[in-house]
């Protein structure tokens, strides 16, 4: 499938909107605003046509290829942003709560998150290998015992 046509002074790229979201096409276009004149056309549900006309003398094939690469770049960025949306929101909420706990006083959503975290921490096995006990507390008795043995000798 040939989705890149080169004319006298511009390159015309045809994009399938099922593969690339409109936001992705806008984002890729913005990158090229300094290098080329851009015109968007077509049908956002069937076929999006992007016309790139370089502002200065430039290899049209290379320009078109770089635009297609930028589409993949932003397409991937968008997908990852969607995948990590929840975790990013959670981290942000956690940071807000840590810095200003008063924010949760009137907010039911924050209260629910805190309750959930508390339940999680209760369900978590408490220190099964005694890692959380400070060294002094754990070995103080043994140390004192040895000292006493040395004194008696």
């Amino acid at each position: 499938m040939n989705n890149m046509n080169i004319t006298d002074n511009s390159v015309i790229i045809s994009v399938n909107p099922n593969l690339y979201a409109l936001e992705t096409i806008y984002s890729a276009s913005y990158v090229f605003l300094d290098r080329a004149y851009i015109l968007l056309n077509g049908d956002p549900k069937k076929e999006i046509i992007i016309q790139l006309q370089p502002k200065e003398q430039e290899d049209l094939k290379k320009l078109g290829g770089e635009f297609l690469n930028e589409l993949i770049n932003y397409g991937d960025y968008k997908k990852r942003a969607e995948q990590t949306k929840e975790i990013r929101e959670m981290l942000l909420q956690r940071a807000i709560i840590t810095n200003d706990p008063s924010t949760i006083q009137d907010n039911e959503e924050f209260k629910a998150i805190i309750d959930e975290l508390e339940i999680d921490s209760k369900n978590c096995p408490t220190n099964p290998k005694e890692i959380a006990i400070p060294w002094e507390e754990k070995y103080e008795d043994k140390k004192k015992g040895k000292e006493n043995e040395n004194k008696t000798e």
Partner: protein
Amino acid sequence: MKIKLNKDFYNKQAIEEALNDFEGVCKGKILNEDMEVELQLKEENKNIKQEFCNYVLGLMKNKIMV
């Protein structure tokens, strides 16, 4: 000089703002709901049409109109 900007991709508000910003270079107006824009140049400018399209896109980016 007429430009037809596809209404599915270009925001009317951004076009109106671009027309205001381009007042020093040209006089223009939106002719119809299909976003056909007429530009009357004050001075000869070879790339004004393309610059106008890019400017509209740029405005849409800055204002998150998309």
